């Protein structure tokens, strides 16, 4: 994909969802079936090679996006809709007020509705946003947001259409004086374009906001790995949001707002030179609008001043004034090496939006009644040129948690709960590698620690490296692993102090009772052996008790 198109296309007035309009051929390899005996010429093959639309690719590879099982499909759909709603509210500076309703149509079919109090979407943009399966601009910009790939809600809409044939329904209103619009949208999978089935103006009470409804083939399960758990955890990581959840059973859960302020808005940054690979660098060199190499380096990257740009060019043996479009591969490689060899300031890190220790604790307290809480929010760090930060929190000693089972680990990336592929995740690996025994927590080799504990880890980054497109596990970059470990050690130390204090008290109590229990027996034995009087025996016991109690205080 050309770099020029990576520029964000401001799709709508509200900034609700930005997507680039590309319908370029998908890079994935078309399937080529070659009979074993008949030899085909290149020309023959060429006839069979054709473009594949993004939507067609998706229909064949739905598992890549988290639609591999009916249970997961439900969760993914809810997740996409909720992510969008939260992102929209935050970008417009509105405290989110969300309504999530899941209605059971049959055992294998559900209708999902997500409604927000966001800014709404202008009428003309609605079909494109929900009816075109596209690569979003979030993929190319570097900014902490829930969605990264930007495939989003339209993929869920396509899944619904594939499994139930029902269109996606959208109601949106952008202000008090404006009418609300209701659309039924289908996707033409061959053309990857929206087809508007119905379009009315409707009566709608909210002054602004958006409601999305989808009907999909799915199954609903209760528990931590289901929508129930997702909603609960989303509330923990988004204390500024008010969420109302109506489960398929009809049960209504209100998750009240804990923080009355929006989190600090994250900022977009340019890529840091140390995080750029040679191929990308080549492409950027050719696509840039800068007049020369010096300008290119200074304008396309963060932390590169004119002086630093000149330094890089000199190290690479190139002229700062050369035009970049004509740069040969060798020159690009020299430039790449020069960039790696140049000391650069770390990327700006104040662009991230952490949850913060206080709100982490608040979220946990709301979730569970425990004897001890601790939280830490690390300062930002960098992996491959991308700033990121890690936060961790624990709640220990809750009655409803079993003492002899692995701790409950809750993972978040950019405030989104990760419910699947726990064992493949860098967070889990770091938790396992941390030595919890030194904090007084049981742990067998290569396993999660045991105990009545909830362990929560949040990774915020302009670009969270997931192991797959379905965004379920964070890749194990050493820098990320290290930061997670440091965060865990930080909360672990606090927990260790608490546990040891408890153990010391129990120990002292035990020893006190030891003295009470066993000293009389020393008296009895001495009396039996030495035939001393009861009075002498009492004296021995009293003296010994006194001696031992004094020795303990020393």
């Amino acid at each position, binding site marked *: 994909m050309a770099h020029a198109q990576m520029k964000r296309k401001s799709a709508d007035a509200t900034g609700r969802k930005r997507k680039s309009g590309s319908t370029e051929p998908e890079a994935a390899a078309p399937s080529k079936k070659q009979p074993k005996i008949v030899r085909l010429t290149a020309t023959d093959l060429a006839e069979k090679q054709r473009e594949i639309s993004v939507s067609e690719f998706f229909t064949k590879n739905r598992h890549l996006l988290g639609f591999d099982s009916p249970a997961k499909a439900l969760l993914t759909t809810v997740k996409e809709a909720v992510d969008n709603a939260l992102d929209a509210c935050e970008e417009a500076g509105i405290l989110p007020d969300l309504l999530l309703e899941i209605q059971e149509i049959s055992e294998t079919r559900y209708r999902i509705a997500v409604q927000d109090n966001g800014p709404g979407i202008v009428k003309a943009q609605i079909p494109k946003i929900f009816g075109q399966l596209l690569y979003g601009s979030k993929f190319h910009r570097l900014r902490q947001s829930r969605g990264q790939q930007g495939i989003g809600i339209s993929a869920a809409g396509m899944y619904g259409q594939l499994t139930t044939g029902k269109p996606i329904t959208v109601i949106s209103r952008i202000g008090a004086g404006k009418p609300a619009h209701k659309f039924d949208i289908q996707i033409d999978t061959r053309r990857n374009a929206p087809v508007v089935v119905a379009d009315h103006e409707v009566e709608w009470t909210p002054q602004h906001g958006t409601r999305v409804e989808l009907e999909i083939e799915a199954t609903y399960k209760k528990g931590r790995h289901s929508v129930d758990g997702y909603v609960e955890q989303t509330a923990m990581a988004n204390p500024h949001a008010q969420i109302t959840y109506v489960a398929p059973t009809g049960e209504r859960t209100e998750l009240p707002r804990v923080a009355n302020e929006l989190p600090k808005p994250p900022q977009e940054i340019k890529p840091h030179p140390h995080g750029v690979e040679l191929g990308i660098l080549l492409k950027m060199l050719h696509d840039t609008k800068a007049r020369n190499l010096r300008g290119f380096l200074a304008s396309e990257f963060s932390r590169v001043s004119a002086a630093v740009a000149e330094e890089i060019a000199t190290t690479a043996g190139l002229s700062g004034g050369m035009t970049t479009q004509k740069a040969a591969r060798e020159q690009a490689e020299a430039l790449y090496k020069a960039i790696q060899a140049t000391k650069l300031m770390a990327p700006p890190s104040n662009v991230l939006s952490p949850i913060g220790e206080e709100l982490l604790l608040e979220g946990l307290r709301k979730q569970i009644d425990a004897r001890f809480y601790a939280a830490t929010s690390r300062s930002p760090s960098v992996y491959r040129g991308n700033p990121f930060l890690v936060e961790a929190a624990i709640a220990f000693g809750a009655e409803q948690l079993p003492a002899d089972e692995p701790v409950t680990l809750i993972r978040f990336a950019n405030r989104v709960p990760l419910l699947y592929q726990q064992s493949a995740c860098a967070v889990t690996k770091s938790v396992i590698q941390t030595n919890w025994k030194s904090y007084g927590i049981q742990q067998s080799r290569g396993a999660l620690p045991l105990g009545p504990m909830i362990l929560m880890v949040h990774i915020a980054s302009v670009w969270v490296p997931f192991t797959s497109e379905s965004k379920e596990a964070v890749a194990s970059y050493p820098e990320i692993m290290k930061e997670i470990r440091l965060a865990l050690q930080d909360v672990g130390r606090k927990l260790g102090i608490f546990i040891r204090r408890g153990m010391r008290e129990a120990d002292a109590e035990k020893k006190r009772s030891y003295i009470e229990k066993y000293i009389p027996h020393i008296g009895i034995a001495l009396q039996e052996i*030495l035939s001393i009087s009861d009075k002498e025996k009492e004296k021995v016991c009293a003296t010994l008790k006194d001696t031992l109690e004094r020795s303990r205080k020393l």
Partner: protein
Amino acid sequence: MSDTNVVPKIKKEAKAVEESILKKKTPSLKFPIRSLANVRYLEKEGYFEIRGKKKERTLTVNTVKTFAQTLRMMALSKTLVETDDMATKREAYYVSKNWDDARFLEQTESDTVMDDVEALFEVNREQLGFVPEEKGGDVAGTLVVVDKDPDTGKSIRIDCTKFGSGAYSIPISVEDLKFETKAKFILVIETAGMFQRLVKHGYWKKANCILVSMGGVPTRACRRFIRRLADSMKIPVYVFVDGDPYGISNIYRTFKVGSGNAAHINEFFCVPQARFLGITPQDIIDYKLPTHPLKDVDVKRAKDAVKNDPFFQHHKPWAKAMEQLMSMGVRAEQQALAAHGLNYVMDTYLPEKIAHPERFLP
């Protein structure tokens, strides 16, 4: 064997504890360390002697429970000795059930405390009034044991040739026994099965010997019985066990020179004149015996013996034999001789071996 009364020793120790307490000090007891690391091999006398290392148990908050239990065990011992009674280890454990919080929860706990007390006074547990449950061992052959009738105190002559296919059972206390025999040697056997075979076919008649079955690691009574018998009758002792690290380093070594655990009394509970008849590693080759591979635990035991056991360090032929066994990587049981015929052991193996006692391993 020293026959000093243990009661004054107990009183002396208890008095020291009492005085220390009244001086507002924390009392302590000094126990000799009972392990192979704290023994030395006495070449001339031929047994493991305990070295001076002691562990001191000071009365602190942490040790108050064990300390109380040790003192109560001492008091129990004093009562037993004074009333001329005795208690088995199991009985002593049940007596402790009257001690409220100081009672033992498992017999292993009371056994350990008993062993500590025994070592503290450097006496045999029988002198403390405690007796083991274990069986002493079986005897058959040309031997008369002179014992006393428990009721009348009159001498009883027990003829060990008159037990038919059964055997005389070694009692727990053997100090007062006397012996009459014309046997040429004592053959000490590891397994009851091999003992049975030799008794049934009257091997002791043919070879004019005394047969003793140990049934695994020999009990203290068994070792003491053979020691007294061999000393008083001046006859050689040959040991016949499995050809594996357990038979050699645990059974034979304990039999001959004592153990680390009973280091304080090895002097009396060992049979230094014992010689190793078989099965030697060389026998496995010479007699083409069927074998089993050495298990990990066997290899570990053998390595440990060569490296840490003063007995093997002192006897080069033994160190060599162990190395040989390890390099062969196999073990052979006594019963393996049955591969050449059930009575091969009596008709061929034992006669051939006994013809050359000078070839026995030390």
